[in-house]
């Protein structure tokens, strides 16, 4: 029960950001929601199913470009984002169906290669995407600065609420149980009649949908995207680290992990610009070595219990 309370507090706390009227704070909150969507989505495939996907950036970029291109054709924001989600579902289902027969490192590398491949496609399909010059996304209405910040904050926040809802439903449902079986022993799961191909493909496709929608909101939010930006490998790695912070396998953990990470990153950026990535690297190393089960295992550590990776 406590995890629902934590989730509720987090969502309400984030929703309070616009009340401050501080656009800087709202930018951070929007970013936190965006990464929380990505971390929770990654958790579906990487945490629940146990397939280490490094393809998050592929779906983020796919969503950003799908919705960005639609926006240049004067399609309204909600429709373009919904289309981005549908496109990502289909593409992720196809990629997943092909790649989910690989395991471990092979799966990780194959998904990483998908990111590279899509980036190169976006780079060379100049007619559609503007190639390396990037894509300008027009504003559809001239809102004030604060109104626009609120619009995109609530779009991201709503997306996070939707993602959390779907992920928690999956976690609790028969699908979640099947995914846990696949994670623990795929062969045994198949033997007792779990259609593992169906369920893991579904998990991968779902993990792509919300990431793509977040990419779509992001594209309209920043008004300009280019392949190196939305297919950035860091967009793939950060959600994994966030899920590790929160404890792999838990949706709420991933969301909390994302907020902790974004807050910590911002503090580090502001104070130690020259060493920011080094400090983040140190944090990651320390986390993996000393708290491999996330912040949730901190109390075990403090009581001197063995926490093995």
């Amino acid at each position, binding site marked *: 029960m406590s995890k629902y309370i934590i989730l509720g507090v987090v969502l309400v706390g984030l929703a309070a950001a616009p009340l401050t009227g501080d656009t800087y704070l709202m930018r951070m909150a929007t970013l936190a929601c965006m990464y929380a969507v990505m971390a929770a989505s990654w958790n579906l495939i990487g945490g629940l199913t146990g397939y280490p996907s490094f393809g998050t950036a592929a779906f983020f970029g796919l969503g950003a470009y799908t919705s960005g291109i639609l926006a240049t054709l004067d399609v309204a924001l909600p429709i373009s984002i919904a289309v981005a989600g549908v496109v990502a579902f289909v593409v992720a289902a196809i990629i997943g169906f092909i790649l989910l*027969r690989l395991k471990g490192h092979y799966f990780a590398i194959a998904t990483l290669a998908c990111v590279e491949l899509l980036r190169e496609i976006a780079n*060379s399909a100049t007619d559609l995407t503007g190639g390396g010059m990037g894509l300008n996304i027009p504003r559809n209405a001239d809102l004030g600065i604060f109104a626009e910040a609120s619009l995109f904050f609530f779009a991201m926040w709503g997306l996070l609420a939707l993602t959390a809802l779907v992920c928690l439903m999956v976690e609790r449902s028969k699908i979640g149980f099947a995914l846990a079986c696949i994670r623990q022993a795929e062969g045994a799961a198949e033997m007792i009649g779990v259609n593992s191909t169906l369920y893991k493909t579904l998990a991968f496709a779902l993990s792509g949908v919300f990431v793509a929608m977040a990419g779509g909101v992001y594209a309209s939010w920043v008004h300009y995207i280019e392949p190196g930006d939305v297919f950035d490998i860091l967009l793939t790695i950060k959600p994994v680290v966030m899920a590790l912070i929160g404890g792999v396998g838990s949706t709420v953990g991933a969301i909390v992990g994302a907020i902790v990470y974004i807050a910590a990153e911002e503090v580090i950026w502001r104070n130690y610009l020259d060493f*920011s990535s080094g400090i983040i690297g*140190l944090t*990651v190393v320390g986390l*993996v070595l000393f708290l491999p089960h996330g912040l949730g295992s901190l109390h075990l550590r403090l009581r001197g219990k063995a926490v093995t990776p």
Partner: protein
Amino acid sequence: MIFVQILVNGLVLGSLYACIAAGFSLVWGVLNVINLMHGSFIVLGAYLALGLYLSIGLAPWWSLAVAAVLFFGIGYLIQRFLINRVIAAPVLLSLTLTFGLDLIIQNAMLYFFKADYRSLKLDPALGSLAFGSVVVPVDRLIAMIFALLLTLALYIVLRKSRVGRAIVAVRVDQGAARLLGVNIPSIYAIAFGIGTAMAASAGTLLALTFPIAPVASYAFLGKAFVVCVLGGLGSVPGAVLGGLLLGLVETFGAYALGPEFAVMLSFGLLILFLVVRPQGILGRWGFE
């Protein structure tokens, strides 16, 4: 004649790829760890060659020996004290650990060497050899020869030396190797040290042919992935075959389709191989 020229370019590039991938493949095959620092070790090796050339005029192919010894030690220590702690954990943790370490190295490189692209220009320049209309720059030729020699040296060490046989034994059957008295943590550290030494040595050679910058590491890492999967994991002949194949595919692909398709082609090939033949061309799981 353009065909022969492209073939030669592809083989030169491919030998360097083979050398890059051999150490990566060794670590992946023996330790089951994907070392995301591999690209950064290559770039560090290149900076070492650049530094030694600019300060005391040491030619890159001699820096290679310095890099090999120095980075063997660094790799040995990193494995022994950091990676060894998560070696039994799920792949996600070791991958994330090497990513974190790589962030630290990247940050240090940016801080000390800055983000600019630098290149090592030999003075006097070595010129190039011409065979009819086929032209090969001498520095590239030397880099190619040393890359192949280095890869051959790794092959011989693994085949003939006692420690090499122990590494192969751990790769093939860890349990049996342990029963026969092989010290597994020590072999892991040595294998990782060799992988690191191979990366840095390859880097000294790459300094001759590629511009160097901290961000270049990701491109090299990407090549190592592709070559490993093409040739077959954990085998030196596989790395050579995969490297040459990738070099040829890239150069011919760039000629036929345009240079912007070279990267797309290599990653497309990677995914194709992962799906159709994940064990690689040679397809042997053993390690020779």
